[in-house]
C-alpha cells in the first residue's frame, strides 16, 4: 500500500497548537449547564406534581445552588472569550442558525428564572432568613403567586438548556466526533442524571433517596444505551466518522473514556444503586459523587476528542487536556 506523508507549513506557534480552540472553560460550563438543567427540571416537575412533603430536597434545597452554579458556568464562558469587551454583541442579535446565539438567549432567560425560583424556597430551607429590604420580600411574595407558571417555564427552559449544550457541539460538521444528533439527548440525559445525583447527595429522607436512586439508575441505563448507539452510528458512517470512533476504540481516548466515563461514571454507580435498591446498605454518597464525576469527565472527553477529530491534517490528532 501507499504511504502518505504530509509536511505542513502550518507549524506557526500561533496557529496549529492552539487549534484546540476550547480548553477547560467550555466543558466546565456544559457540565454545570446540564447539572442546573437537571436540578431545575426535577424541582419544577415534582413541584407541579405537589410532592413538596415527599421530595423536599429536590424541590426546595437543591435549586438554591443553581444560581451559583450557573454564575460559575457563565464566568467560565466569559473567561473563554478572547475578545471579552465585545461580549454584549451576543445580545444585539438573534441568529437562529447559530446554536450559540440561542444558547446565549436561553441563559439570559434561565439565569433570572433560577434566581427567582431559588428565592421562592429560601425561607422554607432557612426559616430565620430575612430579606433585609422589604421590597425584595414583597417582590418575591408577589411573584410567588405565579409559581405554577414559573414551574412550567422552568421545565421548558431546563429541557432547552440541557439539549442545547449537546446540540451546540453536534452542529459542527467539521468535527466528526461531535457531528452526531445523539449528542443532544446524551447531554440532556447526562444532565438529568447528574441533577438526580446532586439531589441524592443532599437528601436526608429515605423515601426521596429511594425514588431518586430509581430515577438515576434509569437515566444511567439510558445514557449507556445512547453511548452504544452513538458508536454504532459512527461505525456505520463515513471514514472520518469511523476514524473518530476509533479514537475511543483503541485510540488515544480509549482509556480515559472507558474507565473514567463509562466505568467509574456509569457502570459502577449503576451497579451500586441497583444493589442499594435491593436492600444492600451502601453509603449513597459514593454513587452520587461517581455520577457527578462521570458527567464532568464526559464533557471534558467529548469536547477534547471532538476537536481532535478532523477531516484534514489527521497527524494533528492528540490528547490535549
Amino acid at each position: 500500500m501507499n504511504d502518505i506523508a504530509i509536511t505542513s507549513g502550518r507549524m506557526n506557534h500561533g496557529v496549529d497548537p492552539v487549534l484546540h480552540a476550547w480548553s477547560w472553560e467550555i466543558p466546565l460550563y456544559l457540565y454545570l449547564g446540564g447539572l442546573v438543567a437537571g436540578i431545575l427540571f426535577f424541582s419544577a416537575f415534582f413541584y407541579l406534581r405537589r410532592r413538596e412533603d415527599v421530595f423536599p430536597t429536590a424541590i426546595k434545597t437543591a435549586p438554591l445552588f443553581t444560581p451559583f452554579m450557573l454564575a460559575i458556568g457563565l464566568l467560565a464562558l466569559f473567561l473563554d472569550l478572547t475578545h471579552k469587551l465585545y461580549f454584549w454583541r451576543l445580545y444585539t442579535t438573534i441568529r437562529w442558525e447559530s446554536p450559540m446565539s440561542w444558547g446565549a438567549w436561553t441563559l439570559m432567560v434561565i439565569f433570572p428564572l433560577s434566581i427567582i425560583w431559588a428565592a421562592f424556597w429560601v425561607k422554607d430551607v432557612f426559616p430565620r432568613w430575612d430579606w433585609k429590604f422589604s421590597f425584595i420580600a414583597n417582590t418575591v411574595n408577589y411573584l410567588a403567586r405565579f409559581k405554577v407558571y414559573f414551574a412550567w417555564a422552568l421545565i421548558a427552559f431546563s429541557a432547552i438548556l440541557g439539549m442545547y449544550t449537546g446540540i451546540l457541539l453536534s452542529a459542527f460538521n467539521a468535527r466528526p466526533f461531535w457531528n452526531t444528533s445523539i449528542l443532544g439527548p446524551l447531554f440532556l440525559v447526562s444532565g438529568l442524571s447528574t441533577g438526580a445525583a446532586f439531589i441524592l447527595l443532599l437528601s436526608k429522607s429515605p423515601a426521596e433517596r429511594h425514588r431518586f436512586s430509581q430515577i438515576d439508575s434509569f437515566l444511567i441505563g439510558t445514557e449507556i444505551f445512547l453511548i452504544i448507539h452513538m458508536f454504532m452510528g459512527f461505525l456505520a458512517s463515513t471514514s472520518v466518522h469511523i476514524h473518530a470512533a476509533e479514537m475511543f476504540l483503541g485510540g488515544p481516548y480509549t482509556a480515559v473514556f472507558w474507565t473514567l466515563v463509562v466505568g467509574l461514571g456509569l457502570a459502577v454507580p449503576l451497579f451500586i444503586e441497583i444493589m442499594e435498591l435491593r436492600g444492600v446498605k451502601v453509603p449513597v454518597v459514593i454513587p452520587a459523587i461517581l455520577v457527578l464525576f462521570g458527567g464532568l469527565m464526559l464533557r471534558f472527553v467529548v469536547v477534547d476528542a471532538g476537536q481532535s477529530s478532523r477531516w484534514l491534517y489527521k497527524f494533528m490528532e492528540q490528547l490535549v487536556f
Partner: protein
Amino acid sequence: MRYAMAIDTKRCVGCADCVVACQTENNVPEGYCRDWIVEETIGAFPELQLEIRSERCNHCADSPCVRCCPTGASHYEEGGVVLVNHDECIGCKACIASCPYDARFVHPEGYVDKCTFCIHRVREGKNPACVDVCPTHAMIFGDVDDRNSDISKALRTRKYKTLIPEAGTEPHVFYLL
C-alpha cells in the same frame, strides 16, 4: 459575481512566497499565518509522487463559520468572500471549531482572523497579494461567474479538485491537477 482562486499544483514549488506576502500585506503577527503550504508525498520510496498546495480559507459558499457565528461577525461580502467583522467578534471560537479546513485563528488582539482574499486590494482592481507575488504564476484569482476571466478559462480547460468537498461547504479555492 463570485470570487474564487485556482492554484496550479503542477506549477507550485512550495516556496512559501505567498505566505510571506500575505503576512506582510496584512500585518499578520509573528507566529501566525493566513495561508500555508502543504506538501503531500504519496507512495513508497522510490516510487513517489508529490503534490504541493498553497492552502487558505476556501471562502465556502455554504460556510459553517458564518452559520455558527452567534453575533453575525462572520459574514459574506461581495463576491461571496467570507470576512470577520472585528468589532462584532466576541472571540467565542465557534467558527474555529466549525471550519473543516482549520483556516481560522485567534489574533493576539482577541478577534478571530483569517484570509480575506485581500478584499481591500481586490476592490482597487488588484489581485490578492499571494497571487501577485507567486514566482511561478501558479495562482489565478478572479470571478468565476465571468466566462471570460482567466480563472473561468482555467477551470474549463484543466482538471481540478477542491479540498474535502464531502464536508459539504462548497469551497471556492480550486486546485488544478
